[in-house]
């Protein structure tokens, strides 16, 4: 008698052309024909993102995530929290990315041995076992060019010679016996602003999401504390498991023994209740006239409330209505591109010079006889502001305990546009 086994049964990797290029089973083998249900759903969906993440089939359930244009399809047989599986699949992708730099079909195929070894360690009988990158790296060394060469010559392998101790440790996220000649700890405070601006330029909703990514290369078992000048700004936070929660609750200080290498220390949210300064404005005039085959398109960008910092890497994209055949536009700076098939307009503006505001003006030619489109296009904006966190969050100090040496410390701030849309 076969009882329904819980958790993840099998994993299929499907590329954008719909081929299964890798499969792994943790229990008995599930035929790949189960993926046919997935392909059906894929066909029904108009866009790749519209494939439902959970698909029921007569005997199994398929839970999938789409990342880097690869679908990771997990097969499960019975009740399991869907987020459990989704979160795990994302963790797998993160691990691949961490190991191979990119997570593409080619990278996975080139490193198929490591991929198998990783998947074997990450799940035991379908239940997550070792998902911390520090433990995994102890078990299976990431491939590097040098190591590949050495391995070919000497016949040695990339499986660690020593037995991993991380899983036994009280700080499972940190490997033991770390040694560096240069001890350094760098923190990046990156904020993304999400906003919807309406036709008249007023803000409908705006919020700031921030993360603190760390790159810590310190010898031994350092115990760090990081304090903020204005911790009250943080409306909602989520931590890496290494952060001591009670200490944060009581003193608003981040106290932690860091994992070795790169990790995300903290994600936070600054809510829309606080007024968010919008760093950019758009003046637009997009008109279609009934019966005419021409439309006008005018766009001007300018900085606003940027605290003296310049706007960089500005990129405008907009999905024009289907009726637009082509555009004849003239950018005052940067380059623009219109794809007549997908109707996607993109304008790479670059840096904004406040003295000479960038603009994009010209005309659109419309399909003859077609009626005027209902909707004006939405404009998506991307930008970066270096050396400033929009919310005003400031790190006060970073201290290290438990080790004697003096580390190099550094903190960098950056603001980016997240989902920043202007309705016209």
């Amino acid at each position, binding site marked *: 008698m076969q009882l329904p086994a819980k958790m993840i049964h099998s994993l299929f990797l499907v590329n954008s052309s719909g081929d299964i290029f890798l499969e792994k089973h943790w229990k008995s083998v599930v035929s790949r024909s189960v993926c046919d249900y997935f392909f059906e759903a894929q066909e029904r969906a108009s866009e790749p993102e519209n494939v439902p*993440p959970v698909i029921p089939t007569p005997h199994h359930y398929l839970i999938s995530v789409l990342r880097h244009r690869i679908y990771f399809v997990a097969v499960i047989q019975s*009740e399991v929290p869907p*987020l459990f599986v989704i979160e795990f699949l994302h963790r797998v992708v993160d691990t691949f990315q961490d190991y191979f730099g990119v997570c593409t079909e080619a990278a996975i195929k080139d490193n198929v041995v490591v991929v198998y070894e990783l998947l074997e360690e990450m799940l035991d009988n379908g239940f997550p076992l070792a998902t911390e990158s520090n433990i995994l790296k102890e078990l299976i060394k990431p491939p590097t060019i040098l190591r590949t060469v050495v391995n070919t010559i000497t016949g040695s392998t990339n499986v660690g010679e020593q037995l991993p101790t991380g899983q*036994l440790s009280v700080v499972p996220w940190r490997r033991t016996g770390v040694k560096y000649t240069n001890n350094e700890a760098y923190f990046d405070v990156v904020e993304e602003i999400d906003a919807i601006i309406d036709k008249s330029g007023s803000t409908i909703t705006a919020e700031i999401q921030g993360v603190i990514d760390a790159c810590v290369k310190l010898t031994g078992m350092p115990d760090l504390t990081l304090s903020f000048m204005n911790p009250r700004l943080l409306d909602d936070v989520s931590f890496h498991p290494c952060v001591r929660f009670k200490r944060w609750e009581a003193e608003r200080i981040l106290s932690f023994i860091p994992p070795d290498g790169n990790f995300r220390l903290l994600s936070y949210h600054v809510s829309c209740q606080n007024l968010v300064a919008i760093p950019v404005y758009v003046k637009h005039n997009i008109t279609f006239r009934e019966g005419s085959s021409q439309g006008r398109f005018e766009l001007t960008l300018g900085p606003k409330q940027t605290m003296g910092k310049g706007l960089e890497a500005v990129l405008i994209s907009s999905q024009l209505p289907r009726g637009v055949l082509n555009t004849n536009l003239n950018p005052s700076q940067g380059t623009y591109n219109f794809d007549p098939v997908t109707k996607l307009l993109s304008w790479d503006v670059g840096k904004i010079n406040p003295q000479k505001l960038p603009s994009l003006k010209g005309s659109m030619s419309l399909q003859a006889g077609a009626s005027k489109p209902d909707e004006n296009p939405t404009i998506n904006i991307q930008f970066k502001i270096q050396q400033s966190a929009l919310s005003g969050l400031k790190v006060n100090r970073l201290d290290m305990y438990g080790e004697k040496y003096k580390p190099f410390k550094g903190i960098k701030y950056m603001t980016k546009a997240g989902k920043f*849309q202007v309705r016209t």
Partner: protein
Amino acid sequence: VQNSDVGYFENCRCVVFYEQPPPACAVRSQKRSNCEPMIARGKNASDLFPAVVKNVACKNIEVKKLVYVYLVRYAEEQQDLALLSISTFQRGLKDPNQLIRASALRVLSSIRVTIIVPIMMLAIKEAASDMSPYVRKTAAHAIPKLYSLDPEQKDCLIEVIEKLLADKTTLVAGSVVMAFEEVCPERIDLIHKNYRKLCNLLIDVEEWGQVVIINMLTRYARTQFLNPNMNEDKEEKEKKKTEATAIVKRKPYVMDPDHRLLLRNTKPLLQSRNAAVVMAVAQLYFHLAPKAEVGVIAKALVRLMRSHSEVQYVVLQNVATMSIKRRGMFEPYLKSFYIRSTDPTQIKVLKLEVLTNLANETNISTILREFQTYIKSNDKDFVAATIQAIGRCATNIGEVRDTCLNGLVQLLSNRDELVVAESVVVIKKLLQMQPEQHSDIIKHMAKLTDNIQVPMARASILWLIGEYCEHVPKIAPDVLRKMAKTFTNEEDIVKLQIINLAAKLYLTNSKQTKLLTQYVLNLAKYDQNYDIRDRARFIRQLIVPTDKSGALSKYAKKLFLALKPAPVLESPFKDRDHFQLGSLSHLLNAKAGGYQVLPDWPEAAPDPSVRNVEVKESVRAVETVTKKSKPRIGSSESESEEDDDSESESSESEEEESEEESEEETKKKKKVGNERLENTRTTDIHTHTHSERRNTHILNCDSQPNTIASVQVFDTICKPAWLYMQFLLNPPLPVSVPQTIIPSGNLKTYELLHRITGEGLSVEYCFSRQPFSPDPHMVAVKIQFTNSATSEAKSLHVEDAKLQSGMRIKEFPEIEVLPAGETISVVMGIDFCDSTQAANFQLCTHTRKFFVSIQPPVGELMMPIFMTENEFKKEQGQLMGMNEITEKLTLEEKCQGEHAVVQRVTTAANLSRVPCGSDKECRFAGKTVTSGSLVLVSVVTKEDGAAQLTVNCEKMVIGTMLVKDIHQALTQ
């Protein structure tokens, strides 16, 4: 290696290992043949089995690992050969290295060969009592594997699970609960003894284990505790019943401390980076928390919406269900659900659902404005969903019905037919609610029949005209005429509605439409679709009077023109919450295999004492208990704070402890007693046997807020030992253990509301001197209501507190009913900010409000702490000068003698006695509740009743007032 060719992967089913000629440079390669994995082209690699299996003894770890993978995959097919490898694993199980023991067990248990079941069972049993927690964890992982291989082993496996559930390490907890869920989820009784431990360990368990434990505990709590919202739910039900039903006598709800423990210990996990953990906590709160507390999860769920779109999809599904039942919770986050043009359609539709659920009178105008922009979208599926949403808002909120209707009517002139069709369908539903006022809209829609082609929309229009033909008497027959013309080309649902329209017109206006109806019915009679033929025949019999027509035709009008109830537009997520949220079954709205039904709350709570943990009378046991699993103290809510940073320290010490148990014990005993432990977080209690050190302090506690709690624990657990040692040191010491020693009868009660002013309700209060559990910075005030009136008092609660700045009140839960002649006590917390200012508030009943105030005597603003003599002296030395107040006094006659002094001082102020070598001096220590400033009191007695009172306190005002109070207590 050999994977450059995509073709390799075409039909692959397996990983294959094959013997590779050893590389030239590898010297030792003959002995340890080097295996490399490859993907074969659809070729089954099982014929290589013998060659591979012999490599299992190989020393190279990678080879070993790959052989393991291969073994596990093919063992089922090649059982005999697989057995060859078993001895290697059996040897591995005895290896001195715990990692090797663990991995041997892991592979052994993965080999799916029935013959080795007994070997596996033995190995699991042995590993379950292994010294290393990591091996025990692996044993827990192996349990479900063996169970799926041979379910007959269930009973034996349950024994192992029971044993592992008792394990105190975080490493094991997650895995064993996982095994429990797979093997015996129905054996909820196994959890009782481990419940508190699991709650306390939770925060340190790895994230995947947390999800499993939280889901299991949710189910557990549903079987063991009472519904915290039961009074509200009951009220709702009662309202529905007739007034005549006798009002059931309800007990006020008191939450089981274990229930509270679970809620409190899961809350921090809302801050987890793992979406699955956050969702698990959210569903726990949704299913278990009192209504007022569920709100905390909203923020975390909204945060998850920033994550990957798959996560967003699942979270939105759950938010949609929650927002129906607890709308208020997500209202502040309304804007987070606004839709962006770049969202995938499935996300857009879900967000729309949530927005619709959140709509109410106050926010509807903003929501409708948002909807207006959505209607212009290019994504037509989304537009259709928006129109549906507008319809639902219009039905739910009467005020905006006309606005919505007008908006939808404007959409009828939209260029896109799908939009128009969807609008027609929705308008039809809305018009059904109040057709009289909208005949012009019906006229407008009648005109649309010329252009609109979507069958559903045409059918809706025809139905509308038929139903309300009296409002449009001129147009209706004309529409029928046009329809009769095109009848043969219409879709089936339209045809059916044409027949309906004809029948209704025939009944109301037979003069004009008789012929038309006959014509339509004739056409229908020869239709290809038998439904239509059938309908035509039926209707003809019913409405056209013939000699043969039966009794029914008399009622034709009633049948066709009956008043039809307006449709209710409901959310598809309504009532989905009978599935446990966050589960696969909830998402699919269908029961998935292996889904454990979330049980309903019990009517009466099962015996809570099953969760009590027996405590051995040894020092070691005390230590572990204080740290990990709290015993319950009497009926009061045990509030022993978990040691904070247990992430590292506690689990570390745990592990060490289990391994070198006896050794450590002796070491600890040898430790010099006077040392104050630097590790201030853990509440270690050091006891030193009398023989080792006389006359030293007994307790070594820090001054953290958790002191009281830990002392309480200590007090209950090992009272005999404690008293014994007290006796040795200081024979007749009456007041040594604070709070609990003072019997509640001795507490001074004050009047809050007199019987006469309160119209029969009298209220008294006293300072219970118990720590106030929800907030340690508050003073617990016990309030006793007595209803001496003849009628019952209802809904007693606190309102409108007028407080000095900084002061806070934690109100007691509302008392639903206080029957006549009965008495009830509740506890509320007040943070007086270390001042004797009164807290003013209103005490409300269902009819009246009374202004009352509570003013604390200075002695109640502090709580006792334990100190050693040395510490006392040291602290006193630091609080000299302005902070020290000394007063000479003459003791009252009755008050001479140590016993009396101690009693009077501790009655006047909530302080605890500090051991003292001299019998001429009594010392007391405490700290203020809010700021935790030390309060030290010493009374030195001299001859003839003369005495000197010294108070040292950082807060001079407190000190001065305290001197006055104690002075009064000792001299009167």
